[in-house]
């Protein structure tokens, strides 16, 4: 089949980006690396490669994940391919001072060792162009506070997979309130046993059902903050 013999370098820009969407969808890491280099060689800015090709492609993956068409294994492969492209772009983005979508500190709460869902959110957030600082599992409130102070993120993300650990999210949020810094951050929570009502009850800004929803919510919340901030000035 002729289709098997796609030569990336022979495609024009538009076809190449379309092919990158397909290749991200199929989790083809080497093809994504090659295409990223080709676009850069053709004079694309790193920021355009990121947003138009990689983030655009991951949006399709995220949508199909949200809609129950793709599942975790496919998303992991796609995120892995995306990450390979990001590895090429990251130093270049730093050099060119490209605009930042936003920054997130994320971690699974104390007593909870589950990280599949959290890792997925991290990857999808990176896929959407966010900078992500991953604190890993089993985080006490002090760990979150330290990270908020040093990283100064827009968003704090907390994950829990157990009914026994999900109340700890409230401990963290209450501590932020005590210190008077709760409003400095967008707090997003997620995990299998959680729901919207729980998110509201503990004082989070939003509960995110899955990684795709987390990305959408993060974008919307960051945009709203920027608007509010601009209005205040």
């Amino acid at each position: 089949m002729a289709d098997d013999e796609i030569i990336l370098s022979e495609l024009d820009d538009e076809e190449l980006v379309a092919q990158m969407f397909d290749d991200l969808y199929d989790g083809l890491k080497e093809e994504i690396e090659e295409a990223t280099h080709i676009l850069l060689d053709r004079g694309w800015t790193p920021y355009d490669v990121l947003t138009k090709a990689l983030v655009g492609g991951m949006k399709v993956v995220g949508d199909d994940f949200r809609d129950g068409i793709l599942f975790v294994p496919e998303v992991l492969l796609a995120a892995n391919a995306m990450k390979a492209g990001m590895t090429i772009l990251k130093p270049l983005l730093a050099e060119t001072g490209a605009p930042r979508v936003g920054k997130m500190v994320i971690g699974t709460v104390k007593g909870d060792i589950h990280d599949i869902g959290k890792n997925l959110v991290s990857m999808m957030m990176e896929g959407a162009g966010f900078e992500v600082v991953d604190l890993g599992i089993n985080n006490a409130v002090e760990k979150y506070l330290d990270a908020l102070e040093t990283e100064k993120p827009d968003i704090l993300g907390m994950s829990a997979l157990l009914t026994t650990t999900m109340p700890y999210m409230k401990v963290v949020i209450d501590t932020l309130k005590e210190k008077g810094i709760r409003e400095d951050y967008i707090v997003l929570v997620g995990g299998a046993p959680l729901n919207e009502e729980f998110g509201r009850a503990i004082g989070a800004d939003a509960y995110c059902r899955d990684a795709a929803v987390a990305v959408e919510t993060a974008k919307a919340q960051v945009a709203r903050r920027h608007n509010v901030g601009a209005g205040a000035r």
Partner: protein
Amino acid sequence: MTDALSRLLETRDWLLTDGATGTNLFNMGLTAGDAPEMWNLDHPERIRALYQGWVDAGSDIFLTNTFGGNASRLKLHGAEGRVRELNRAATEIAREVADKAGRPVVVAGDMGPTGEIMAPMGTLTHEAAVEMFHEQAEALKEGGADVLWVETISAAEEFKAAAEAFRLAGMPWCGTMSFDTAGRTMMGITSAEMVKMVGKLPHQPLAFGANCGVGASDLLRTVLGFAAAGPERPIIAKGNAGIPRYHEGHIHYDGTPELMAEYAVLARDAGATIIGGCCGTMTDHLRRMREALESRPRGERPTLEVIAEKLGGFSSAGDGTGADEPAARRGGRRGRG
């Protein structure tokens, strides 16, 4: 057929298993951050009370407090070297409680997932997973478990690794997966796919099924999916008592004992033989489930409409087994073998 569960399955057409370990231990004072398995040694009287509660409520089978008792999970509490003692302790207490019950009660040595993603997507190899499950399986066997019971699994590879470990330990076993993502497991397995996968295992389980997930309605939809695929083994239904709600510092599940009684009867009608609860299911729920299973006659296999009417709606429109499913994954322009 010499194991206790096979004997019960021969004489009875439904069996009641237990409810929630985590929710109960939390109510007994377990705090976020504690590994429940530590209590097998630190608070054996509480674990005994947990087990005794199930037996008194009418359980034919109960699971040991060893869900997180594999090396991968215990490592997060710096206790990866204590797999044997923690699993043995849990099972020895269970054995005592079961043997004093005055009727046949099966001790199921509980095993949860490793919490890691298996290769090639993740880093956990089949060999390493088998080794971890095998270590735990041997300890549960030593402690006196009648059967081993792996649950809340989302990847077929991990389920197979557990099955392999049970073969190595020479133990009869049961296994359930958790269908929590649009009617599939997190890794995308449908109920029909699980039946196919289980059918091919070299070391067959005594029974297989679903646990946890999203509420009682979804779980029964999964049971209907199993039944429609024509499995050769008895089906297990172990659903949550509703959805977790947060109230004044505590989590409680909104499924009432009445609802769970209705769920138990519907589960049997849907084709399940081993019926129990998962998160949020307390002894009151279980007692009502037992009463309902004993007093109410079998009915027709319920439709999805009947389930939704009696237990509430589903979390997603489909579960990957029907015709009215979302579009299939997009086709790329590269040939995909």
